[in-house]
C-alpha cells in the first residue's frame, strides 16, 4: 500500500467516526429536545405520583445535565450495558438475538436480487428494443413502484395463508431445521428483492448497451473472439462495476434498517422489527443502539466502496485531497 493510499484510508476512517458521533448526537437530541414527553413520567405507570416520578428520574439519571446523560448513554452503549427504559432488557443482547434473522434475510435477498438482476439485465440488453425487452422494462418499473410491505402482505396472504404453500410469516432457526429456515424465508427474500431486481436490471441493461459501443469491444470482436466471449469477458465484466458498487451500499442499508418493513410484515423479529417496536414506545436506549448499529453498517459499506475505488483508480485519491 502506498503512502497516499494509506493516508486516504486513514482520512476516510476518521471522517467515518466523526459522522457516527454526529448521528448519535442527533438521535439523542431528537428524543431529549422534542416535546415527546418525559420518559420518567411514562415509565412511572398509568397514574404516577410525584415522588415515584422523582425517584425514577434520580435512579436513571434524567436529572443530570444533557451532556452527562449523553456520556453515560455512550458508555453503556460501548460496554454493552444499555438497558431499555420500558422492557428493562439488555439492549445489546436483544440486538444480538435479532442479528442472525436480519442477516439471513439480507444476505439471502442480496444474492437473489443480484443473480436475477444480472440474468434479466443481460437478457433485455441482448434483446434491446424487442417485445420481451419492453415487457421486462415495464415489469421493472412496476417492481420499483410497489411498496415492499404491500406486496409482502399480499404474498403472505395468497401464497401463505390461502394456498398454504408457504408458512404465513415467522422464522425458524437454521440450526433447528435448515429446510424450514429456507422455506420461511422464500417469501421475505422475494418481497425484499423485487425493488432491487427492477432497479439493478435497468442500470445493468443501459450499462451493457453503452459498453457495447466502446472501442475495446470493437477491438475484441475484430481480433476474432466469439460473441459469447466478448460479451462475458469484456462487456459484462465492465458493466458490472456500477451495480456491484450499488450492491455494497444497498446491502449495508438493508441490514441498517432497510429491512424494517419486510421484517414487520413477515414477523421475522429481527433487528429492524425490534427498532420498530421500540420506536412505538419512544424507548430511547434501543432506538439509539439500533440507529448507531445501522449507521455503522451504512458508513462502513460506504467507506469500503470508496476505498476499493481509490485502490483501483488513483485519480480519486487526488480528488479527495482537500483543495484549500
Amino acid at each position: 500500500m502506498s503512502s497516499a493510499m494509506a493516508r486516504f484510508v486513514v482520512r476516510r476512517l476518521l471522517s467515518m467516526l466523526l459522522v457516527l458521533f454526529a448521528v448519535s448526537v442527533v438521535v439523542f437530541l431528537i428524543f431529549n429536545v422534542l416535546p415527546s414527553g418525559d420518559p420518567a413520567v411514562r415509565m412511572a405507570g398509568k397514574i404516577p405520583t410525584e415522588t415515584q416520578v422523582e425517584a425514577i428520574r434520580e435512579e436513571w439519571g434524567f436529572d443530570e445535565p444533557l451532556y452527562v446523560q449523553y456520556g453515560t448513554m455512550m458508555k453503556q452503549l460501548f460496554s454493552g450495558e444499555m438497558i431499555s427504559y420500558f422492557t428493562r432488557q439488555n439492549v445489546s443482547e436483544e440486538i444480538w438475538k435479532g442479528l442472525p434473522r436480519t442477516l439471513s434475510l439480507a444476505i439471502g435477498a442480496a444474492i437473489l436480487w443480484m443473480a436475477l438482476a444480472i440474468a434479466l439485465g443481460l437478457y433485455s440488453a441482448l434483446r434491446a428494443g424487442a417485445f420481451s425487452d419492453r415487457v421486462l422494462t415495464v415489469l421493472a418499473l412496476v417492481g420499483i413502484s410497489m411498496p415492499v410491505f404491500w406486496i409482502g402482505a399480499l404474498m403472505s396472504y395468497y401464497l401463505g395463508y390461502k394456498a398454504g404453500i408457504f408458512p404465513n410469516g415467522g422464522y425458524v432457526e437454521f440450526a433447528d431445521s435448515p429446510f424450514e429456515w429456507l422455506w420461511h424465508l422464500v417469501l421475505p427474500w422475494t418481497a425484499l428483492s423485487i425493488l432491487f431486481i427492477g432497479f439493478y436490471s435497468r442500470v445493468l441493461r443501459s450499462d451493457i448497451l453503452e459498453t457495447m459501443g466502446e472501442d475495446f469491444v470493437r477491438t475484441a470482436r475484430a481480433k476474432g473472439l466469439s460473441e459469447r466471449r466478448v460479451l462475458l469477458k469484456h462487456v459484462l465484466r465492465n458493466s458490472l462495476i456500477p451495480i456491484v458498487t450499488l450492491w455494497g451500499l444497498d446491502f449495508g442499508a438493508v441490514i441498517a434498517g432497510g429491512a424494517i418493513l419486510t421484517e414487520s410484515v413477515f414477523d421475522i423479529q429481527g433487528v429492524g422489527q425490534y427498532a420498530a417496536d421500540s420506536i412505538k414506545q419512544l424507548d430511547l436506549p434501543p432506538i439509539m443502539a439500533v440507529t448507531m448499529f445501522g449507521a455503522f453498517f451504512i458508513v462502513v459499506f460506504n467507506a469500503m466502496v470508496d476505498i476499493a475505488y481509490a485502490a483501483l483508480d488513483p485519480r480519486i485519491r487526488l480528488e479527495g485531497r482537500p483543495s484549500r
Partner: protein
Amino acid sequence: MVFTSRDEAESAGTEFSLDSSEQLAGDPAERAGLGPWRLTGRRLRRDKVAIASGIVFVLLIAACLAAPLWASEVAETTPEENHLSDQVLIDGKPTDVVDMLGKPIGPTWNGHFFLGADGNGRDIMVRLLYGGRNSLVIGLAAALGTIAMGLVLGLLAGYYRGRADSVISWAMDVLWAFPVVLLGVALGTALALGGLDLGPITIQGDSLAIPILIISIAYIPYLARPVRGQTLALREREFVEAARAQGMGSMRVVFTEVLPNVASTLVVFLPLLVANAILLEAALSFLGAGVQPPQASWGTMIAEGVERITSAPHLVIVPGAMLVLSVLSLNIFGEGVRDALDPRARVRIEH
C-alpha cells in the same frame, strides 16, 4: 426506503446539461434554432407512453380533488362516518355493511360502497379519494421542499466552496449515514406525540406538515450532491467568469448564471422525488409514524387493511393498487422527461 441510488443521482447530475446543441445535431426532427427547453418539449411529446402516464397521474389528482363531490353526491357519506349497523341492497336483498363476525362487504360497484367497506363500516372509495389527497399533497409538498432545500445547500456549497462546502458536505454525509426509514419513523413518532413548538410556529402532532418535513429532509442529499457537483463545474466556466468580471455580485451570479443551468436537473428529479416521497409516506404511515388516524392516506389504509387481510383482502389490494398506479405513472413519466432532456440517454434507448 431509497429508490434512487446515489451513484445514479451523482452521475445524473453531471450528465444533464442543456447547452449541448452540437450533440443534438444528428436528429433531423430537431431543427437548429430552437431553445433547449423547446427541444425537450418536442422530444417529450413524441414519447406517447410518457405522455399517457403523465395524463394518468393528472387524472388521479383530479379524482382526488373531486373527493367531496363523490362523497356527497354519489356515496352520500363522509370519509370518517361509520356505517357499522347499516345495511345496503345487494342483488335486491339487504346486506349488513359489516357482518356479525366483523367482516366488511366487498365492492358493490354501486354508488354506495363502490369499493366495499372497511372494518369500521366506512366507505372505502370515499376514504381512498380523501386518503389520496393526503398522499399526493405530502408527495408533492415533500418533493418541492427537498428541491428547495437541496438546491440552496447545493448551490451554496458548490459556489462558495471552502468552509461552507465543508460544513454542508459533512452534514449531507451525516444525513446519508442515517437509516432513512428508521430516522423517519423515530422523528415521526416523537413529533406525532408532542407536535413541534418552534417559537412562533406551532405544529400539531397530527398535522400533515410533520411527514412532509421528515420526507423532504430525508431526500435532501440526493439533490444537494448533484447540484453541488454541477455548480462546482459551472463556476469555472467562461460565462460565469464573464459575469463576475462585469462586476455582478455573487448572489446575482448564482441566480442568473448558475441556477438556469442546474434547472434541468431539478426538472428530472421532480417526478421521481414525488414518486419516492409518496412511497416513503406510505412506509411511515404503515409503521404508524406518518398520517395520523382518523385521517386517511393510502399508507394508513394499507396498514389498517393488513390487520384484517384474512377476512377482507380488498382492504389491502385497493389502496395499494392506487398507490402503485400513481407511483408507476410518475416513474414512467419521469423516465420520459429524463430521456427527453438527456440526448445521450435517448441514443442509448434507440440502440
